[in-house]
C-alpha cells in the first residue's frame, strides 16, 4: 500500500508543487490539502510547504495558523501524526505552538538562496530515521526570515531532549541560534526545517538527491510503523 502524504496549500504557498513532487519521487502518493477545508482526508503524514502564506503579513505564519485545516492538524499532530514544516511551514508550526521557538529575519537582513551543508543531529524522528547520525547532506536554503531563535532555557531543553534535528555545518548563513536548521517536537513526530529538502531531490534541478532522505524516511516509517 502506498503511503498518502498530505501537502497543504495556503494562500501564498509556493513550494507545494515541489513538496508533492518529492513525495512522488520518494514513492509516496501526494494528497493536496486545502487551507479552507477542515479535513485531512485520512492521510498518513502531512507536509506544510514553503512560501509566503498570506504574504507574510503581520508575521510569517501568524495568519496561516488560524486556517480551518490547522484545527484538524494540531490535534492530529499532538496524537502522533508525522508532520514536516519546511521554511514557511516551519514558521507556521512555531506560530501554532507545535514547535518551540521562532524564526526571525536573517542576520544581514537579506533573503538568501544558497546551497547549504546540514548535519543530521537526530535520527529519532520519522523524517530523519533513514539518515546516519551525524550524516552531512547538502540542501537548498532560501528564506528571508530563517534565523531560528529561542530563549536560553528552551535551547538547553532542545539540546538535552535531542530535539535539534539538523544544524548548519558549513558556517551559519542566517544567524540561527546554535546553528539550528531544524527542530522537532518532544515526541519527535513534528519536524520543522528551515532549508528545503524538496529542492534537493534531483541533480538536474538542485544540488543533488540528499533531500529525498526526509521523504523516504517518513514513507518507510509509515510502512514499518
Amino acid at each position, binding site marked *: 500500500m502506498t503511503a498518502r502524504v498530505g501537502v497543504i496549500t495556503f*494562500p*501564498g504557498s509556493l513550494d507545494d508543487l515541489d513538496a508533492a*513532487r518529492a513525495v512522488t519521487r520518494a514513492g509516496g502518493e501526494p494528497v493536496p490539502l486545502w487551507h479552507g477545508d477542515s479535513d485531512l482526508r485520512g492521510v498518513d503524514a502531512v507536509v506544510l510547504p514553503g*512560501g509566503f502564506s498570506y504574504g507574510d503579513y503581520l508575521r510569517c505564519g501568524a495568519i496561516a495558523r488560524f486556517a480551518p485545516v490547522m484545527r484538524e492538524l494540531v490535534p492530529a499532530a499532538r496524537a502522533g501524526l508525522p508532520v514536516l514544516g519546511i521554511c514557511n511551514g516551519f514558521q507556521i508550526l512555531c506560530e501554532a505552538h507545535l514547535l518551540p521557538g521562532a524564526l526571525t529575519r536573517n542576520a544581514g537582513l537579506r533573503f538568501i*538562496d544558497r546551497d547549504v551543508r546540514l548535519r543530521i543531529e537526530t535520527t529519532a524522528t520519522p523524517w530523519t530515521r533513514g539518515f546516519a547520525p551525524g550524516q552531512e547532506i547538502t540542501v537548498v536554503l*532560501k528564506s528571508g526570515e530563517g534565523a531560528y531563535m529561542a530563549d536560553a532555557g528552551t535551547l538547553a531543553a532542545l539540546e538535552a531532549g535531542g530535539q535539534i534535528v539538523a544544524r548548519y555545518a558549513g558556517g551559519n548563513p542566517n544567524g540561527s541560534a546554535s546553528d539550528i536548521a531544524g527542530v522537532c517536537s518532544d515526541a519527535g513526530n513534528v519536524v520543522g526545517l528551515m532549508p528545503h529538502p*524538496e529542492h534537493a531531490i534531483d541533480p538536474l534541478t538542485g544540488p543533488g538527491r540528499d533531500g529525498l532522505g526526509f521523504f523516504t524516511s517518513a514513507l518507510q516509517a509509515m510502512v514499518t510503523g
Partner: protein
Amino acid sequence: MSPVDTVARAAGTPDQPQPHAELGLTDAEYVRIRDLLGRRPTDAELAIYSVMWSEHCSYKSSKVHLRQFAEKAPAAPALLAGIGNNAGVVDIGQGYAVTFKIESHNHPSYVEPFQGAATGVGGIVRDILAMGARPVAVMDALRFGAADAPDTRRVLPGVVGGISFYGNCLGLPNIGGELAFDACYGGNPLVNALCVGVMRHEDLKFAAARGTGNAVILLGSGTGPDGIGGASVLASATFGGGDSAKRPSVQVGDPFMEKLLIECCLELFAAGLVAGIQDLGAAGVSCATAELAAGGGAGMRIQLDAVPLRDPSLGPAEILMSESQERMMAIVEPGHIDRFLAICARWDVPATVIGEVTDGGRLQMTWHGERVVDIVPGSAADDGPVYHRPAARPADQDELAARDPAALPRPAAGGELRATLLALLGSPGLADKSWVTEQYDRHVRGDTVLAMPQDAGAIRVDEGTHLGVALSTDGNGRYGRLDPYAGAQLALAEAYRNVAAAGAVPLAVTNCLNFGSPEDPAVMWQFTEAVRGLADACATLGVPVTGGNVSFYNQTGAVNIHPTPVVGVLGVHQDVRRRLTIGFAADGDRILLLGRTGAEFGGSAWAHEMHGHLGGRPPTVDLEAERALAAVLTSAAAAGLLSAAHDLSEGGLAIALAESCLAGGRGCQVTLPGDPFTLLFSESAARAIVAVRPASEAAFAALADSHGVPAAALGTTGGTALDISASPDPSAAFTIPLSELAGAHRATLPALFS
C-alpha cells in the same frame, strides 16, 4: 465638491480651459481630441487620452520604426501570436506554447527603487498571465551608475530588494539577467524585467471584448491613488480641490495578491469561463477598457462608480488614470458569471462586474448615472498621434570613432597580463554577482535547470519528455554608443550565442529599447539605427521579434544614456538533461577556442575599466559566423560531446576562462596561439570556449569543421590554478591560483553594497 464634468456639460461649456499641457498633451494633440469628439473632452475623457496617447502607451515616436520588426521578420511558423499582443507566443512543440516579454520600469525605479523594481516584475508577470499562460520564471537586466557613486548605493540595494521581495513572494524563479554599471545610468538606472510563461496551444487568450451583453469584470486589488501622475494636476486645475493630498507617483506592489490573481486566473481559464482578458498596467482602467473594446471591435458600457476603491475620494478621472497594481479585467458570458465569481471567492480575490460589452462601437462610462465618457475606443487605443521625429547623426559620432583604442598602452609581460585579468575579473560589471542573485529564489517550482551564473537560464517545461526552454538577455551600451546599428546586432548576437552555449536552439526574440529623449535628433538617430540593425539581424538569423517595449526619456540631467537595446532570446531544449554549463566539470578535457579573434577593443571592458576610454569601433558583426557557431554548440550539446561551454563577451577569453575555472572549481593549463594580450582581452564576437570530453575530440573536430567554425586547441582542464602560457612569447606566461581568482571575483560587490 465640484459637479462632475459630464458629456452634456462638456458640450455646453466648449470654452472651459483644460489642463492638457499639465497632463502631457501638446496643443496639437488637444486640438485633435476636440476634433475627434466634435466637442471638448470631459475631464474623464481627457484623462483617458492623456494616458493612452502618452509615449509609454502609444509608442507615438517609435511606431513608424518598429514596423520593421514585422516587415523584415523571417518566416516563422512557430509564431502563434506576435507584436501587438500583451506578449508574443511561440510554439515549442509537443503542443506547448511559450510566451515571453521584457519591459522597462526605469523611471519608477529611480524615484523609489524598491517599489519601482517590485512593480516592474508584477507588471510583466500580468502581461504573461493575460495571454493565458502560467508564468514560470523571471529575469532582470539591470544597469546602474558608477558602482562607487553614492546614489548607486541607494538605488541598487533598493532595486534588488524590490525584485527579491516581489518575485520571491510570487513564487517565480529568477533565472538570470544582467548587472552592469556605467556613469551614464547614474541618474537613470535601467530596470528591465522579463517574464516567461507556458501554456498548451489551445489555452491562448486574446485581449478582445466580444459578445454583446457579456460582463466586464474587474478582479484583484482595489483601485487607489497610486501611480496617478497627472490626475492631481487635473484635480487641482479643474476641481479646485485645495486639500487634495499629494499622490504617490510610484505604485506600491502587493505580491501576495498577485500570487492569488495568478492561481485564480489559471483556474478561471481552465474552467473555460474567460472570453477575453487584459491586465491593468500603465493607464489602468483606461487602457484595459479601450484596448479590450477596440480589440474586439465592440463597444462597452462601464459604471465607473462600481469600481472598488481603496480611497473613496477618487473621482472618475483619477480612477481612469490609477495604476494600482494586481488588477485584471475579464470579459465573461452572463451564464458564467456566478461560477466566475465563486472561483474568485475561493482564492479570496475580489471581483466586481463593472459593465458590459455593447454593439454600439462606443466606449461609454457613467458616474452615478451621469455619462462622463463617450468615445470610439479605437481613437484612444489605436489612433493616437504618430510622429516622424527628426533624426540626425550626433555631431560627435565621427570624433568618437576616431578615438582608436589601439593607441592605449597595453600590458605585455606575464605580470602585467595577470594584474589586468585580476582587475577586470574584480571590476563591478564582471565581478561575481552572488550578492545580487542570492537574494532571488531560483529554485521554486522545481524546474530550474540553469540559472545564474550560467550563460542562460533554463526551465524544464515537461518532466516526462524533458522538453525545456532557455533564455538570455544581453545588451552593451558602450557598443551602442559607438555604433547603434552594430550595437543592437551585437546585443542580439550575444543573447543568441548564450542560448546556444547552454545547448538550446534559438527560436525567438523580445527587446527592451532604452534610449534618451526622442525629441533630441541625435537620440532619434540612435534609435532608428538600433531598430534597423536589430530588425536586419533578426531577419538574417531567422529569429522573429515577438514583442517588446520602448523606453524613452532616459537621461541623467541633460545627458542621455548610451543607446541601450536589451535583447532577450528564447531557445528550445529538446532534452534539458543535455544542457551545457560553463564550469569545467572534469579533469583532462580538451579546451578549444571557437571562432576568430581580431584586435577588437572599441567599447571593450578593458578600455573602459583600465583606461576609462570609450572610442573606436565596436566588434565586427558576423551573423553567419554566429549562426554557424550556434549550430556547432547545439549539435555538440545534443550529441553529448562537451563537458562545458561558455560564451565569450565582455572581458574576452580571459574572463571566460576564469569564470569556467571558478564555476567548476577546477583549473586549466592554456597555451595561447598568438598575441597574448589580443587573445586574452579582445571582444571579437561569434566566439566561445568549449571543454570536449576525451573520447569526443574527433567527432567534435569534424562537427566544427563541417560548419566552418575555427577551433583552436588551447589546453586542458585540471589543477588548482589558471595557468596561461604563450607559445611565441614565454615572458607572457602567468599563473593565478583558484583561491586568488575567487578572492578577486567575489569580494567586489559585498564590499560595495553590504
